[in-house]
């Protein structure tokens, strides 16, 4: 019997309210209200409750926990992802995986935990005036969160899907590393993306949120933040809509929360959209712009032996080589990683249909898939996308893929094919409508060079949404300051990945934890008059 800490906590009487069950409007007061329970919201909730503040957390998704996690895609995607794991950019050229459940994306991510690269921080200091975003100043906060979430390089041998990356890269003299993961007693099952069934993953769901609830915080689920209400230079309330039990439609009831400080942590896309709906001051039109995705290219190899890419820790080997060979603001660089291979998502992304596609899918256990994540946002040709509001006020991300980004996507297809062949692949197929399995490196080179890099032909996905409320010291070029405070309002803070002024160039969860740990402690000091330091280790 695997103990479920959420079920146990609910029995003890945690203040968790499922707003789909409301039969009247609700009004609450708190010291701090936090919109969103992912990496940013969860971290902030723990820090505020530890400081003795009364916290209300607002989550549009449901509260699901290990007893609900059955390692089934058909359950997990509709229940725990934005738009059933099919959130798309405006032209539908990029499909975005983003969490929508208590714990946010941390409940469904693959556990990769990298500190913000120094190259990225240096760019922020130079271009956005973020003077205290140095490796040294952030180190204690990263260390604090790494200890809190048990982050350590994966200690078991990588599964074969990841071993192919290590092996092929080694043959070509390309350095790789072992991914640090936030797990404790991991069973090495491989289903992190569908919710950890053993609670080994140290997501917000099983760490900071229980901590906060244990100390009197309130959690509202199926509760969608509609808008902040303003009075002068301050926010004076948060208006929310109660959603139905599936989290799809509004019920007749609304929720109003009044607090001293308001924290937006719904993740990039949703946070800028909430602020746009609130009609907050936006004098320099920076709100929603510079939203980044780490656009991802995929390459599928056929290996002579079973890979079983669905089994074992999904993401344990990486290479930063192609982030480092050129200047950060030169041609776009990319990080190489490996995703888990589950049947629904693999069937969906694999090009074509009918007999041909049936053939491509026939030997799933022998498939090895590699991904390349483009480091967007470091060049004038890579300004990212813009969050807008649709007629019904839901968010839309307009992210045109520029020639600069297409160039990187194509180069990465070549890189991945070369590594896969070096590791012994018998065929390599870029995920692209016009591609087929190439049986030699020379064929792959010629064909990839000729592939049309066009939206909807080249499959581009994203699992990392960043920016849209970028930090900076100059309000003409940013939305919030380095402490996360909204430039034009005195009690509104952005504590999530939307505050990043560029993409990270690495899986962003630990960057969010570290930044928010520092900024939430600063805000807690402001609200309580006490000083909070990271515990020294």
């Amino acid at each position, binding site marked *: *019997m*695997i103990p479920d800490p959420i079920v146990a906590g609910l029995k003890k009487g945690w203040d968790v309210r499922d707003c789909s069950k409301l039969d009247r409007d609700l009004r609450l007061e708190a010291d701090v209200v936090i919109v969103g329970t992912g990496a940013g919201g969860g971290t902030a909730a723990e820090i505020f409750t530890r400081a003795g503040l009364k916290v209300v957390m607002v989550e549009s998704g449901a509260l699901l926990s290990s*007893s609900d996690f*059955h*390692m*089934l*895609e*058909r359950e997990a*995607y*509709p229940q725990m992802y934005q*738009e*059933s794991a*099919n959130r798309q950019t405006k*032209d*539908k050229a990029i499909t975005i995986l983003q969490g929508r459940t208590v714990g946010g994306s941390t409940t469904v991510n693959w556990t990769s935990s990298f500190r913000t690269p120094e190259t990225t921080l240096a760019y922020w200091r130079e271009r956005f005036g973020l003077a205290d975003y140095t490796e040294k100043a952030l180190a204690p906060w990263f260390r604090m969160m790494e200890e809190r979430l048990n982050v350590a390089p994966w200690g078991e041998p990588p599964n074969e899907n990841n071993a192919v990356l290590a092996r092929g890269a080694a043959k070509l003299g390309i350095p790789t590393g072992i991914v640090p993961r936030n797990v404790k007693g991991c069973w090495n*099952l491989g*289903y992190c993306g569908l919710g950890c*069934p*053993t609670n080994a993953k140290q997501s917000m769901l099983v760490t900071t949120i229980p901590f906060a609830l244990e100390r009197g915080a309130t959690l509202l689920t199926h509760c969608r933040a509609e808008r902040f209400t303003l009075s002068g230079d301050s926010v004076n309330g948060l208006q929310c809509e109660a959603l139905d039990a*599936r989290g*799809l*439609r509004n019920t007749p009831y609304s929720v109003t929360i009044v607090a001293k400080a308001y924290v937006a942590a719904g993740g990039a896309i949703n946070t800028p959209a909430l602020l746009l709906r609130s009609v907050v001051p936006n004098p320099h039109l920076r709100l929603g712009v510079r939203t980044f995705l780490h656009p991802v290219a995929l390459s599928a190899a056929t290996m002579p032996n079973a890979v079983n890419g*669905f*089994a074992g820790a999904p993401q344990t080997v990486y290479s930063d080589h192609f982030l480092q060979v050129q200047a950060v603001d030169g041609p776009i660089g990319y990080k190489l990683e490996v995703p888990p291979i589950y*049947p*629904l998502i*693999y*069937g*969906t992304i*694999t090009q*074509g*249909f*009918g*007999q*041909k*596609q*049936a*053939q491509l*899918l*026939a*030997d*799933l*256990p*022998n498939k090895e898939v590699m991904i390349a994540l483009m480091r967007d946002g470091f060049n004038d040709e890579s300004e990212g996308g813009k969050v807008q509001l*649709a007629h*019904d006020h*839901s968010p839309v991300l307009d992210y045109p893929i520029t020639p600069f980004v297409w160039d990187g996507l194509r180069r990465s297809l070549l890189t991945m094919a070369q590594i896969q062949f070096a590791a012994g692949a018998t065929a390599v197929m870029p995920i692209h*409508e016009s591609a087929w399995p190439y049986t030699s490196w020379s064929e792959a080179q010629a064909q990839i060079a000729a592939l049309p890099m066009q939206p*909807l*032909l080249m499959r581009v996905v994203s699992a990392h949404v960043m920016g849209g409320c970028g930090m900076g010291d100059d309000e003409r070029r940013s939305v919030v300051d380095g402490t996360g405070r909204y430039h034009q309002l005195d009690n509104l803070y952005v504590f999530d990945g939307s505050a990043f002024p560029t993409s990270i160039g690495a899986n962003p969860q630990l960057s969010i934890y570290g930044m928010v740990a520092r900024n939430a402690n600063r805000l807690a000091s402001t609200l309580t008059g006490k000083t909070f330091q990271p515990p020294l280790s």
Partner: protein
Amino acid sequence: MSSTFTRRELIKTGIGGIAVLAIAGCARSNGPASGAYNDPGYSYAVLSPNDRAAFAAIGTAMLDGALPSAPAAHAAAVVQVVRGVDVAIAGLTPAPQAELQQLLGLLSFGLTRGFAAGIWSSWDDASTADVAKFLESWRFSSVMLLQTGYQALHALVMASWYGNSESWARIGYPGPPSLQR
């Protein structure tokens, strides 16, 4: 030649596409119900009888080679695919759901289906080859509306079938491990 050219150009401008969607939107409720795809006793959340016939035909063509070949097992699998699509659409938020309803309207109504997809017969009478031809033309269409339409249909059908444990044996996926809870 000129009539094909004109039609293509018309749709290419996008105005044609919008007009087609508008006609489909008006005509949606008037389309005749299709008879051959039959799944009595199951309560569909969003798909109309016409939509079900469309997805039965599209699913059969898209999953050609992936579904069981014995007639009874094939028919049962198609029912699973259509039901799965219904569940998937019902689980979307209002905005993307409305977009899909527009696409389904286009495919339900004979005239718009004929113009946009080249399927002039009812879905029940369309051959797998005809449906495959339509899908292939949308897949590589220069009209974005049609290309995204293909991808939406592809995503729905593939998610429905490969999310279903009945599809796993053929592709060698053993399913998730069983846990001693």
